């Protein structure tokens, strides 16, 4: 087991820099998820940690060893690939035992290690099959089995669930969580799915264009996004984010509609400042249909027309028009609404976010 630390890590392809001097410290036994849209550099970062991609600058430490120029085999890591990358000419057992065979372990040692891993993952029945005879979920499990047999310092996962269907993905997500609880090792997990990141990770690293935007526990990146980008990326449905200008203690939107300036930001903005106002759909609800958010709630209600509804059973997403824009709100204990119907919409301003329109950074402390 080991820590992983990246210091000013840079990746360049020719003159094109795709990862810009990022810093990250992963604690021993921590589960860290790298998340971001495609092309943000998360997979490249993972491949640099694995040693599959040479680094262009900076340092990578695994444990107390600097591994900058070590080949993958000397880093004592395992990796689960998005494509599973099982060896098609070997059986499941041979696939899982391959690393031990290369390491020169005896037949008995290999057999018992493979049997252990197979038991952990429920693969005992499949050991003599070939990858082509397995379903997607089974292949995924074999890929994980191959990773755990050798008890590496660090597990690297490169979007391991993207090729599975939605139901199986949820199931495997749970299994990965259980597996981490069981083997207790350091995990770095790359995904573009923020739900996976939120549910699995101890800490989430949100990347964008080769930079780290924010690092923090799921709760924190959800509650206190540091930038507009994080606010928009984390959470489903996405946060309502609309441009406004501060004027006379109010937020003035494009078409002249206004909201009171939320109390927590009163001392943090100046008149005339251009800002982005953010409010999660959970904190915006048809009056009387919201989540109770305590006494501190600073609720402001506005009469607006409904433009669209998306019933989800236990709740309904209501798209309503305010300030010339569509806002998504979440209605608990839903009742039927027709488009065009006018409703009272409650803004829980105590839960709102403000970002500077220029820097896109949060205006919280």
């Amino acid at each position: 087991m080991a820590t992983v630390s990246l210091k000013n890590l840079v990746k360049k392809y020719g003159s094109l820099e795709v990862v810009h001097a990022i810093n990250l410290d992963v604690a021993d036994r921590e589960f860290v998820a790298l998340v971001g849209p495609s092309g943000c550099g998360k997979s490249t970062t993972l491949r640099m940690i694995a040693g599959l991609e040479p680094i262009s600058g900076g340092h990578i430490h695994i444990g107390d060893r600097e591994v900058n120029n070590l080949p993958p085999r000397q880093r004592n890591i395992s990796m689960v690939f998005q494509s599973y990358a099982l060896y098609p000419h070997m059986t499941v057992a041979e696939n899982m035992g391959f690393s031990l065979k290369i390491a020169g372990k005896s037949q008995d040692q290999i057999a018992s290690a493979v049997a252990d891993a197979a038991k952990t993952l429920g693969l005992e029945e499949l050991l003599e099959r070939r990858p082509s005879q397995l379903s997607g979920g089974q292949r995924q499990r074999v890929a994980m089995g191959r990773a755990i047999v050798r008890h590496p310092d660090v597990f690297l996962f490169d979007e391991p669930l993207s090729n599975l269907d939605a139901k199986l993905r949820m199931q495997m997500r749970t299994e990965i969580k259980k597996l981490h609880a069981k083997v207790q090792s350091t995990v770095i997990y790359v995904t573009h799915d923020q739900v996976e990141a939120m549910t699995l990770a101890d800490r989430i690293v949100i990347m964008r264009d080769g930079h780290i935007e924010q690092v923090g526990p799921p709760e924190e990146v959800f509650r206190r996004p540091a930038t507009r980008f994080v606010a928009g990326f984390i959470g489903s449905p996405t946060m309502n984010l609309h441009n406004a200008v501060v004027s006379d203690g109010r937020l003035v939107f494009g078409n002249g509609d206004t909201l009171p300036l939320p109390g927590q930001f009163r001392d943090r903005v100046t008149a005339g400042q251009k800002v982005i106002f953010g409010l999660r759909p959970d904190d915006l609800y048809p009056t009387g249909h919201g989540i109770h958010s305590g006494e501190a709630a600073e609720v402001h209600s506005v009469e607006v027309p409904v433009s669209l509804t998306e019933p989800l059973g236990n709740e309904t997403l209501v798209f309503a028009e305010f300030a010339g824009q569509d806002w998504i709100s979440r209605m608990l204990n839903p009742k039927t609404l027709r488009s065009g119907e006018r409703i009272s919409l409650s803004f829980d301003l105590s839960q709102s976010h403000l970002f500077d329109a220029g820097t896109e950074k949060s205006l919280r402390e």
Partner: protein
Amino acid sequence: MDENQTNRIKQILLKIGHLVGLFIAMAIICLPGLWIVLSSLRPTVEIMAKPPVWIPESLSFDAYIAMFSGVGQGGIPVLDYFRNSIIISVTSTVIALAIGLAGGYAFARYRFRGKTAIFLGFMLTRTVPGIALSLPLFFVYAKLGIIDTHFGLIIAYVALNVPFTVWLIDGFFRQVPRDLAEAAQIDGCTRWQAFWQVEFPLARSGIASAGIFAFLISWNEFALASQLTRSTNSKTLPVGLLDYTAEFTIDWRGMCALAVVMIIPALTLTFIVQKHLVSGLTSGAVKG
């Protein structure tokens, strides 16, 4: 008649049509071979008869017996030719495969400057007819003193086969997902081990077929061999066929018999290697 019945009959007729078509195609492909075997077993009179004699009246192995009987009794140094052919074909195939393996892998896996141009250049060399090369090669070889040697023919055949093996093997390595070699490296392999343990076994069918093609090209090549060989030192079987032509006569029966002798090893080799030509070995490696 109802629709189902009509469709059923249509399907049966279509099937019969297919089979007849296939039979005709196969007959066209196989008949010359069969004719060679037949001609090697019948008297010359019958071979030259007009109209042709379709059903042979008598068959004998005289031509084969004569072939191995030694000079003066209608024989030719067939064992020498055979030995030359084997040495030259096998050696040139092995070398062409080794180069093709390295080259094909490089083209499939690495990016380098001028890759497309080099690849195209390789292919262009294949568009030059072999016979056009024979005169310039003859001059060069004469100067180097390697006419009538195994070495001379081997390098000529290697040069002839390398573009082809590179091209074929490149295609097969492209089908092996990159992730596999990377997974192997993470599992503790060196780059070299990853190649031999994972990528090579998966591309084996392609390498085998490249081998067969290279072997057959060398085995059957006539144009260059006829110019660059002189004696039993290096004459190959196709050139040996010429021994049956005299100033005024051609011993068609003997020629056919030697042709059969030539076909047998090629056929055997193809048959042996054929079982490695199972495609779709990579299925199940990655998603799908």
